[in-house]
Every structure is written in structure tokens, then in C-alpha cells.
């Protein structure tokens, strides 16, 4: 046996320990952050982030009613009066009436399909002279022509892009003509931007390309932030044309709305119309399906807004942005978004790691989450959309992970403590026993006070004591699930092959002081190997206990047996464990706990158990099962 040189091992151990410590601290955080970033990048978090945006926007305080825009609504009641489709004459009368009050711009948000004769130039002939009139068309998905005759710069499209969850959050301001996509002369503008442009032209504010982003639209010095495929929480969204995120005007009645019939009966204040942007549209839900919106809605009971009002929100956003510096919804670039997630998440994780007690950690995370929400709300109010959902996810996930790891650590520590106790105990035993004896022997030898035979017996005793310590250590290192406790504190390692366990149990049990064992002369035993892979530790334990119990039964109840045998034979995949004795008594008095074990075991093994007397005297107790039958059980 070579001596162990511990000093060689220490430096390597320390280095490994340090690396492991660092890993155990940093790795969980990195993993969670990495997972969340990947989830976001692959679009899994988009739905949640859009939902969060809606909630943040919705929670903003109400704003005053927009002072630039007036809506003329044509509802069911009006349609009943004027007829459907709407006769050209009604439109002509309406436009003429409105123009007499000197509005700034009129937008006729009536698609050709609503008018009774869209292809005729009647409308244009009668109201075409008004240069502040804009009519509408539809360009994408379906093509609906504007009323005939109007020049291109008095036509705006009303196409919109809905998000994947079918809600409207952004507006298309301009797009190339799908019929002639490469012709820059054919670039089309939406109704909203046409109206805003016309209104602002009167104040000498012109529409041009953005200074910072040449593809964006800019009015005067105010650039409208262009929507990109990965703006904010969007991942690979459709950013065709020029789009902006819609910053709805908050409030129950953001726009003054006058029904058509009130205009006709002059039931309104002329000041309501003077110098405004007037938008005329249908608000009957059956004729014009409202557009799904979540932040504000005007139809009263479903989350949707009338089309004409959506146009109003857009015009209002543009005008208020240019004239009153009302913020649009801005976003950081993609890289900054991810950086923010990593930094904010990382800070939260570090804060969590620094705090020691679990309660404190919850408080810290709670505080961080709340301040994140507050920060996001504040940011939205000043027009900045920062990602919040990913960080809200990172921190609780991290906490959960840390909890699991900590639990495992505690378990491990407990095992280590147990082992340490055993080591301590062993040291004490060595110190108090063999070591003392050894010192004794040395002293006696020095005093020449020791005979050779005495020395021999002392050394033998020492040998024994040290060996016992070795046995003790070996036993203690077995875990309880894997051990079977037998007589005289013998522990069996259940991971040993079953037939070997049987051997040990046979010997151990027959050593015990049961009355009927005393007459035994022939103790025969043989056990074929068993295919262990189909037996769980629990079943092995039960088999061992079964054998033990069967032998004990002989020891208790057989009358003066001289022969006992325990044979385990494996024939063609069928294993038979048979315990036989030649005692005169019968073992029928064992219906109590005894047979329960046997029957239960037989059921578990899908085998059979019998205990019957032999005609030549004695009893046989037999358990058999088919090994292959167990292989369907996966363990």
C-alpha cells in the first residue's frame, strides 16, 4: 500500500475550486439572460411586448380634445335619410356647405364603393375646383380607384397594416404604387399625411425627406420617426413603405364629431369648422367594419375604432408633433435595445446575487420590477418605447434558477456534513482505541515488560480493531436507499448482483438464533445469477426480504428440521426461488404480515407464489417469475 501524498494535490484542487465558484456564480445569470435574448430575437416575446406597449399607452392620462380636427360622421341614421350608396348630390351639398365656413382642409374619407357613381366625373366637376379637398383610394391588397378626375396630389390612400394579432398600432404614410413599384413619380401618400401637409403648407411648413433618416418624412424641422422591421418589440415586421407608430390621442372624446344630419340642419357652431381639418367618414359598423385597436376605441363595446377616427388620430399626431412638440413614439435601435436588456437584466441579477437572504432577494427583485415598470411608463409618456418584458422575465427566471441551485447545494452540503461527521468519529475511534493500545504496547516494550505471547495478542487485537474501523467506514459510505439492514447491523449493498445478496442473506439468517435452526444439519444453497437490469432497487430489497422471511419461517415454525435448502434456478428465462425444509410442522400459520410480502412481491414481478406442504414431510415455499415479463417495465 502506498502512502497518499496530499501535498501534491492541493494546488490543483484550489484552482478547480476557484473556477467552479466563478462558474457557479456567473453562469446561471448568463444562461438566463442568453435564453431570454434568444427568445426575443426569434420573435417569441413579440406578442407580449406589443401587449405591454398597449397597456403602457392605455394607462396614460387623458388629453384635451384635439383642436385641429373635426369629424363629420355619417351613421346609420344618416344613411337611412340620404340613401346607400350615398348619392353624389349629398356629397356635393355637404362639401359646398362646409367650404362656406372656411375650413383649412377637407378629407373625403369615402371610398368609391360607398358612392353611387364613382367612375363618373360628376363629383369632380362640381367640387374639383376646391384645392383643399382630398379624396381616397385603396392601393394594396385590393384596388379601389378614387373618384374620377382628381389630380394625384389630392388623392390619399387609406390602406393600413395590422399586426399579427390583428390590432392596429402603426400607420402607413407613404408607399410606392404596386402597379409601378420602381417609378418614383408614382409614390403615393396616405390620406392623413395629405391632410397634414395641406394644413401645414398654409403655415409654410413643407413635407420633405428626413434630415437624419432620408427615407423618413419630415415636416418643417420635425422628422416623423420611421417604423423599422425591428422597432421596439417588433421582430421582422413588415416595414414596407414609410410607416410610423401610432400615438393615439388619449381621452374619451379626442375629436369633436358632428353627425351629417346636424350639418344639414345647421345645428352647430361655425367656429367649430373655421380653419380646421375636416374629415368626413362613415361610422356605421355594418357598412364600414371598424378597425381593431386596443389603446383607445370608439365603438363603445369592442376594442375597435372607426376608420375615420383612425385617420383623425394620425393627422392629430402629426400636427401636434410639428406644432406642439407632442412626442411621437420613438424607439432605440435594435442594438441598444439588446444592450439595455443585458445591462438592466445583469444589474438586477447582480443585485440579486449580492443580497443574501431569500426574503431580501424577493424584495430586491420586486423593487427592480416595479421601478422598471415605472421607468417604462415615464418613458412612454415622453414618447420613448423601451423594452421591458424581457427584463421582467429575466429576473424571476433567474431567481427561480438560483433557488433550484441553492437547494441542490444544500443537499450536497448535508451529505458533506454527514461524511465529515463520519470522518470525525473515525478519528476519535482511532485515537481512543488502537492508538492508545499501540502506545501501551510501546511503553511496555520499552520497560521490557512484555512477553512475546502478550505482544502477539495485543497486535492481533490491534489488527482486529483497525479492521473494524475499515468495515465501519465502508458501511457508512452506503446510502440508505441502497442498503438493506440485516441482523448484527450488517448492511448489504443493494447494488450488488441479486444472487450474491441471496448468498449473504442465507448465511446471515441461518446464523441467527431461531429455535428450529438448531436441528439443521444440511444447509444447501445455490443461486443462479438473475438478470438485474430489470429489477429496481426496491424490488431487489423485497426479494431479499422475501428470502429472509422464508428462512425465518422455517426457523420459527418448522418442527425439528434437519434439512433446509434455498435454490434459485434460471431455466429459459423463468426464475424459480425455492426454499424447502423437512420439518414436520406445517407453515400454515403465517397468513399475517408474512404472506403479504410474498404475495405483493409476486404481483410486482408478475409471477406466482406458493407455499405448500410436501408429502414426505416438510414445506416448500416457492416464488417464480418470468424475467422477460419485467422487461416491458422500463426502469
Amino acid at each position, binding site marked *: 500500500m502506498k502512502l497518499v501524498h496530499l501535498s501534491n494535490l492541493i494546488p490543483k484542487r484550489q484552482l478547480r475550486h476557484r473556477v467552479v465558484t466563478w462558474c457557479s456564480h456567473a453562469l446561471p445569470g448568463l444562461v438566463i439572460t442568453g435564453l431570454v435574448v434568444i427568445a426575443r430575437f426569434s420573435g417569441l416575446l413579440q406578442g407580449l411586448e406589443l401587449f405591454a406597449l398597449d397597456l403602457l399607452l392605455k394607462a396614460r392620462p387623458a388629453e384635451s380634445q384635439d383642436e385641429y380636427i373635426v369629424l363629420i360622421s355619417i351613421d346609420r341614421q344618416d344613411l337611412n335619410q340620404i340613401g346607400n350608396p350615398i348619392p353624389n348630390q349629398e356629397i356635393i351639398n355637404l362639401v359646398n356647405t362646409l367650404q362656406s365656413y372656411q375650413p383649412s382642409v377637407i378629407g373625403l374619407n369615402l371610398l368609391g364603393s360607398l358612392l353611387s357613381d364613382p367612375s363618373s366625373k360628376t363629383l369632380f366637376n362640381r367640387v374639383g375646383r376646391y384645392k383643399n379637398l382630398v379624396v381616397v383610394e385603396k392601393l394594396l391588397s385590393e384596388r379601389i380607384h378614387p373618384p374620377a378626375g382628381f389630380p394625384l396630389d389630392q388623392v390619399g390612400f387609406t390602406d393600413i397594416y395590422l399586426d399579427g394579432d390583428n390590432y392596429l398600432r402603426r400607420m402607413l404614410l407613404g408607399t410606392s404604387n404596386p402597379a409601378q413599384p420602381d417609378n418614383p413619380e408614382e409614390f403615393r401618400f396616405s390620406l392623413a399625411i395629405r391632410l397634414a401637409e395641406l394644413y401645414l403648407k398654409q403655415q409654410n411648413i413643407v413635407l420633405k425627406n428626413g434630415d437624419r433618416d432620408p427615407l423618413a418624412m419630415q415636416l418643417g424641422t420635425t422628422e416623423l420617426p420611421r417604423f423599422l422591421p425591428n422597432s421596439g418589440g417588433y421582430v421582422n415586421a413588415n416595414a414596407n413603405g414609410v410607416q410610423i407608430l401610432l400615438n393615439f390621442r388619449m381621452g374619451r372624446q379626442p375629436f369633436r364629431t358632428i353627425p351629417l344630419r346636424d350639418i344639414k340642419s345647421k345645428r352647430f357652431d361655425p367656429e367649430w369648422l373655421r380653419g380646421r381639418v375636416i374629415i368626413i367618414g362613415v361610422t356605421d359598423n355594418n357598412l364600414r367594419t371598424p378597425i381593431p385597436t386596443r389603446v383607445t376605441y370608439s365603438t363603445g363595446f369592442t376594442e375597435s375604432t372607426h376608420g375615420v377616427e383612425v385617420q383623425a388620430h394620425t393627422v392629430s399626431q402629426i400636427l401636434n408633433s410639428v406644432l406642439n412638440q407632442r412626442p411621437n413614439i420613438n424607439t432605440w435601435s435594435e442594438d441598444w435595445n439588446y444592450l439595455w436588456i443585458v445591462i438592466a437584466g445583469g444589474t438586477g441579477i447582480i443585485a440579486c446575487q449580492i443580497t443574501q437572504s431569500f426574503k431580501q432577494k424577493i424584495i430586491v427583485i420586486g423593487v427592480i420590477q416595479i421601478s422598471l415598470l415605472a421607468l417604462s411608463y415615464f418613458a412612454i409618456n415622453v414618447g420613448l418605447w423601451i423594452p421591458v418584458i424581457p427584463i421582467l422575465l429575466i429576473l424571476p427566471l433567474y431567481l427561480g434558477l438560483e433557488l433550484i441551485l441553492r437547494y441542490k447545494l444544500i443537499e450536497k452540503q448535508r451529505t458533506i456534513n454527514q461524511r465529515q461527521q463520519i470522518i470525525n468519529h473515525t478519528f476519535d475511534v482511532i485515537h481512543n482505541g488502537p492508538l492508545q493500545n499501540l502506545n501501551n504496547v510501546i511503553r511496555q516494550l520499552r520497560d521490557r515488560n512484555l512477553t512475546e505471547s502478550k505482544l502477539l495478542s495485543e497486535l492481533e487485537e490491534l*489488527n482486529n480493531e483497525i479492521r473494524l474501523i475499515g468495515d465501519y467506514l465502508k458501511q457508512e459510505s452506503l446510502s440508505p436507499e441502497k442498503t438493506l439492514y440485516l441482523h448484527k447491523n450488517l448492511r448489504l449493498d443493494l447494488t450488488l448482483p441479486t444472487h450474491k445478496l441471496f448468498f449473504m442473506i442465507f448465511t446471515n439468517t441461518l*446464523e441467527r438464533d431461531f429455535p428450529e435452526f438448531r436441528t*439443521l444439519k444440511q*444447509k444447501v444453497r445455490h*443461486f443462479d445469477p438473475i438478470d438485474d437490469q430489470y429489477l429496481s432497487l426496491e424490488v431487489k430489497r423485497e426479494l431479499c426480504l422475501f428470502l429472509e422471511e422464508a428462512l425465518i419461517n422455517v426457523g420459527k415454525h418448522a418442527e425439528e428440521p*434437519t434439512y433446509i435448502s434455498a435454490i434459485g434456478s434460471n431455466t429459459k428465462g423463468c426464475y424459480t426461488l425455492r426454499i424447502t425444509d423437512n420439518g414436520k410442522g406445517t407453515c400454515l400459520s403465517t397468513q399475517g404480515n408474512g404472506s403479504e410480502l410474498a404475495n405483493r412481491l409476486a404481483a410486482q414481478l408478475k409471477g406466482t407464489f406458493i407455499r405448500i406442504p410436501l408429502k414426505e414431510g416438510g414445506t416448500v415455499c416457492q416464488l417464480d417469475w418470468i424475467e422477460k415479463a419485467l422487461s416491458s417495465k422500463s426502469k
Partner: protein
Amino acid sequence: MINQDLPDSQTLKILVVDDHELFLDGTIKVLQTQYPNAVIESARNSRKLLAAVQQFKPKLVLIDLSIPEITGEFARTETGLQLLQTLMQNYPTMNLAILSSNIKALKQLRPEIEAHQGGFSIADKSLPNKDVLARIDCAMNGFTHTKDLRNGTTGIEIKPEWLTVLNLAYREGLSDRAIAQRMNVSERTVRIYFSRIYDILGIYPEDCRRNGQNPRIQTEIRAREEGLLP
């Protein structure tokens, strides 16, 4: 006597494994004195031993249980046990002598030891030299000596085959060949069964020689004493 197939001459070949140099040297010296004509090889770890058995084809392998697997590793009883198991599996008729201070560890291998078809003896390292030599000699000749392993166990446990042999030999008085036929095994196997029975009953060839006793008749006497033969 159990014949061992010797490859060429009648040279006695012994293979010893022990990692402790002093002990190894001492053992080899003692063995050489006892068997002056023997060729004795040694191995220092279990891996080398397995290779040596293959090449050297010894008549007896003497094993210390506490050895390393390769030089430089710790010496562990588990390694010796593993080695023993491998040897018994691959060379079922090899004569084996186990020398160890940790005899109890062999208890796990009892089934294999009982089924082994070569000589097998066990000696505790603390025994005097002459006892150790006697046991080595026992194994060399194909007999069994596992008394040290059964120290502390009361009563005699036997395999069903051995009981059958006893009955056939002493109640029906059959010869070895007849017993072999009846039990459908080879005569050699019957002789191995007898060597195991001798061991169980505490009958050792050397003692018999010294006391002028016939082992087979001793067996009958002892078996009746122990109640194995009614």
C-alpha cells in the same frame, strides 16, 4: 491428484503478484526454497498480471488482494477482487492462492469460488510461514482451502451438487466414474466436488498424509458427524 495440462516440460511455474517490493521478494525467496525447481515470475499490478498469465501459463497464481491496477495508482482491495474475478472467469481451471490481510473482502466472491474448477486456497497474511506454504501447496495440487474465509460462520453450508456426491458415494457406494455418469458431469468435476467437500469438512491432504488417513474415508466419517449423511 488433479492433472494440470503442462505445456512442455514438467517445469513448475508460479506467478506472484504483489505491489509491495519487500513482501514480494520475501515471498519469492520462500517459494523458491519450497520448490527449488520452480520458475517464479512476478507482476506488480493487475494489468501486468493478466498479460503474464496469458504468456507464462503458470500452474499457480499467488495473489495479494491489495494491489493497484497500474503502477503508480493506489493499491486497493477492489482491484484485487476484480482481478480474481477476471482470472476465475477466463481461466476456470487455474490454481489460485490468495494471500491477503483483508480476507473478509472475498465473501462477495463466494459463489464464484465455490464454482471454480481449479485449486483454490486462502491464507491470512498474519499466519506463520509454514501454514501459508501448506496452503499454497494445497492449491498447487488442485485442492481447496477456504477455512479462513469461513472463520466465524457457524455450521456448514453446502451446494446441492456436493450433497448429491456424498449420497452417491457413501450411501450407494458408487465410484467416481459412476457418480460422474449419474450426475452427467465429467470425472474431473466429481474430483473437484470432492476437493470442495474436503475443504468444508476440514479435511486437508497434508493433514491426512501426516496422520496416515485416507481422505475419502475421513470424508465419510466427518460427513456423518456433521449430519450431512443421515
